[in-house]
């Protein structure tokens, strides 16, 4: 299963990538909003795991763009955040994210979640 992980925090990407690769996932990292959109359009991942608190509120913009494209509108998006406001969470869900996960993510729970989405 192919996963794009979008986060401006390199530590988070390194940790999650290692955990997911150990569990057999193919991981494509994206370090900002533009990379997240490009990687999703180009690789058509099974899931986009997206930090919605990237600088400038750009995570929300990524959801909007991904859902607006016919190529990626069906791509499941799991939002993640350390401190999103209720408004940001609601917006992420309203725009089409499946859920909004609290950071730090437990890798075992994340793997279960991703496998359930893919099933």
């Amino acid at each position, binding site marked *: 299963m192919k996963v794009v992980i979008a986060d401006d*925090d390199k*530590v988070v990407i*390194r*940790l999650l990538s*290692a955990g997911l690769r150990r569990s057999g996932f193919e991981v494509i990292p994206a370090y900002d909003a533009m990379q997240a959109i490009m990687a999703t359009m180009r690789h058509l991942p099974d899931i986009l795991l997206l930090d919605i*608190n990237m600088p400038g509120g750009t995570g929300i913009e990524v959801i909007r763009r991904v859902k607006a494209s016919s190529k990626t509108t069906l791509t499941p998006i799991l939002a993640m955040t*350390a401190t999103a406001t209720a408004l940001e969470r609601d917006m992420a869900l309203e725009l089409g994210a499946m859920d909004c996960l609290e*950071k*730090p993510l437990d890798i075992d729970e994340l793997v279960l979640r991703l496998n359930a989405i893919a099933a």
Partner: protein
Amino acid sequence: MDLEATELETLRQVFLDDAPPDPSPALDEEALSRAVRGDVELVGDLLALFRPEAAAALDRIEQALSDGDPSGAAAAAHAIKGTLASLHARTAAGTAGELEEMGTVSDLDRWVALHARLRVQIRQVLGELEELVGRMESRTEGPT
């Protein structure tokens, strides 16, 4: 509000130079070890990624403090808070969270104190990460 450099430096020295390290562990080593599954290379990478990020965040907070820019300080604190939480450094993440939530530079003493505390805690996190890498490496190498 622009602070005179000397005033800021004086406050920093008062809080920073005398700030004792917290005696309790800065890292939840058990949680981090579980997350990395004993992968010493991964912990080494995390340390290498975290070191410059932490230094840059502390500098950005300090710069924002001297520029009287609370939103800049909050943004920098927010960024490093997420990183610290992911490393299971909860105490330091909490301090970064307090800085993020200050939202004003009116209480200068508190700003400077929190920044100094965060600097000390981050130094502890780095030290404990280095120790963890060392211990994992020696376990990997085994007895000679």
